[in-house]
């Protein structure tokens, strides 16, 4: 039952693949372009709405300018919030273009905007109305909260958003456990839901304009539907279909374990080497959180294998999993696959636990690929799975380099890299490992003349 036989099967020549398998595939550029145009169109449309709903006379009246800014920031901020939700809704078409870490990077980069714009919206509307009424700000706040429909709930929603914004500031976030932050962060859905009504009840672009009301409601309903479908429905369906159960937990090296799960119909799971799943182990302490771990080998029905390094509470608990534990999965995700390769030659670099993605990617590469593989670790025993990697490299007629030592002793710099791989700039580069390592190798590749579109990376955030 062990995975040795599985690994051997993976590297056996002429492994049979049934033709009817659902095949994973790479990004679809046309879809991505359509998505970009659509995202831009929405932005242009809400900006135009804000401009058309204010007449020149209203703008010149007392408080008109502030009210206009308030309405513009409100519309644009809400629209950006919708885009943020879409970005993390795991829509496969978007995921295949940006990859999970690309999605999260953009989400993180853009998310401060909707929150600050919506805060500005509340401020400017209050100021504008107060100016128009020649009333004090405090009085105006009371009027807005008590006399305007749905403003109270929207204010509560804004409060939740601001709290989420604060806890997401890097300095604050570092002090929180990942799980705590994640749970707080989930309240964003609630905040958006309870803020929705006041837009239709009070927004001058919506009151009395059935067309905008319908378009706006449909856009939000569709977004909610996509989130429900891809973040909730699809994982549930997949988990029920494959019914994964932990079969074995095996140590691989210092602090590293492999978890082997068995399940049904795994041959119908369209997964590419280098991809990962969010794993949810259904034990008393772990069922409520899903963590991203890479598959360290292609599925060998009825088995799949993930390899995990204990760096946090969750990954440490993985080592203590008992056989028979039920497992729910969400995925596969990731663009660290052979489908994004631009040129025939490839250099694969992994540090530490990054070897897991490299290992399954390598397994997915065709026999003649002749890849150059570079494994980096502090101690020789940190190079987990090195025997499997060596066998896969040999079978694909590639070369394997192992680099062990401290960063000073075995530095990966321009000199050492060009010595190991003189024709680096002619091929694709796949890098996988901790964030700092990935960044430094990507920078190095850029300096050595590897074009950006030929560099593929997957970073592990701790």
């Amino acid at each position, binding site marked *: 039952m062990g995975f040795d036989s599985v690994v051997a099967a993976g590297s056996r020549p002429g492994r049979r693949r049934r033709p009817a398998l659902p095949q994973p595939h790479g990004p679809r*550029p046309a879809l*991505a*372009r359509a998505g*970009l*145009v*659509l*995202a*831009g*169109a*929405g*932005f*242009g*449309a*809400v*900006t*135009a*709405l804000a*401009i*058309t*709903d204010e*007449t020149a*006379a*209203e703008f010149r*009246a*007392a*408080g*008109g300018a502030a*009210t206009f800014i308030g309405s513009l920031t409100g519309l644009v901020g809400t629209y950006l919030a919708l885009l943020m939700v879409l970005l993390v809704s795991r829509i496969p078409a978007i995921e295949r*273009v940006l990859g999970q870490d690309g999605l999260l990077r953009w989400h993180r980069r853009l998310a401060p905007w909707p929150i600050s714009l919506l805060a500005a919206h509340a401020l400017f509307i209050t100021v*504008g*109305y*107060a100016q*128009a*009424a*020649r*009333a004090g700000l405090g*009085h*105006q706040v009371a*009027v*807005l909260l008590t*006399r*305007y*429909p749905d403003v109270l709930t929207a204010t509560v929603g804004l409060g939740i958003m601001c709290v989420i914004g604060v806890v997401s500031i890097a300095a604050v976030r570092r002090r929180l456990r990942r799980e705590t932050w994640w749970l707080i962060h989930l309240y964003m859905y609630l905040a958006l839901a309870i803020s929705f009504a006041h837009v239709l*009840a009070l927004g*001058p672009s919506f*009151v*009395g*304009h*059935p*067309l905008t009301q319908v378009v706006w409601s449909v856009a939000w309903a569709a977004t909610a539907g996509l989130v429900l479908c891809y973040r909730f429905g699809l994982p549930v369906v997949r988990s029920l279909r494959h019914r994964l159960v932990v079969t074995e937990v095996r140590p691989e090296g210092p602090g590293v374990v492999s978890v082997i799960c068995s399940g049904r119909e795994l041959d119908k799971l369209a997964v590419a080497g280098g991809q990962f799943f969010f794993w949810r182990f259904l034990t008393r302490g772990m069922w409520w959180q899903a963590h991203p771990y890479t598959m360290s080998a292609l599925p060998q029905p009825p088995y799949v294998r993930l390899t995990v390094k204990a760096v946090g509470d969750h990954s440490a608990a993985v080592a203590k999993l008992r056989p028979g534990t039920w497992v729910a999965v969400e995925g596969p995700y990731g663009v660290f696959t052979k489908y994004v390769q631009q040129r025939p030659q490839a250099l694969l670099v992994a540090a530490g636990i990054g070897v897991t993605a490299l290992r399954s990617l390598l397994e997915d590469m065709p026999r003649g690929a002749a890849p150059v593989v570079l494994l980096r670790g502090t101690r020789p025993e940190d190079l987990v799975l090195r025997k499997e990697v060596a066998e896969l490299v040999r079978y694909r007629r590639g070369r394997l380099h192992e680099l062990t030592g401290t960063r000073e002793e075995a530095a990966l710099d321009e000199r050492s890299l060009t010595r190991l791989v003189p024709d680096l700039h002619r091929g694709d580069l796949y890098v996988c490992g901790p964030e700092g390592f990935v960044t430094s190798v990507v920078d190095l590749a850029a300096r050595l003349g590897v074009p950006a*579109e030929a560099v593929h990376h997957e970073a592990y955030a701790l």
Partner: protein
Amino acid sequence: MKRAGWYLIAGAAAGFAGVLGLHGAGAATPSSPGPLASGGAGAAPAPAATATGGTSRSGDPAAPSGGAAPARRATGAVVPYGYGELSVTVTVRGTQITAVSVPLLRTAEPYSQQIAEQVLPMLRSEVLAAHSAQIHAVSGATYTSAAYAQSIQSALDKLHVK
């Protein structure tokens, strides 16, 4: 992805132009969107039907009533605002505004109607006190107040007051 920014900008321009175009089309055909603007300006079955759209002068210089300056009356433009549209009729004697009424008020939904009915008396007393369209907006009814003031100003312009 190459040229991602250009696709975004092209989309934004298209979306912007699309909404402006729709808005323009809606403004050109008065009977287009929703419960509003179901008739032309002034043609509404409004209470206190003095809305003739133009200037109606009751009281002629030739037949002064009451000895002082003659009372003149005009109905201001129908002003659409965020939640509906309204028009105001003003009666002046010399430069004094002696009466204000609202022959036309239509709102998109009951809530806006309720707001408007609450604030119209307040706005009326402000105008009667200020004798001009320079009035304070009522808190919570910014758009209604602005439309009210604008319609009054257009009526005063018709009467060549100030």
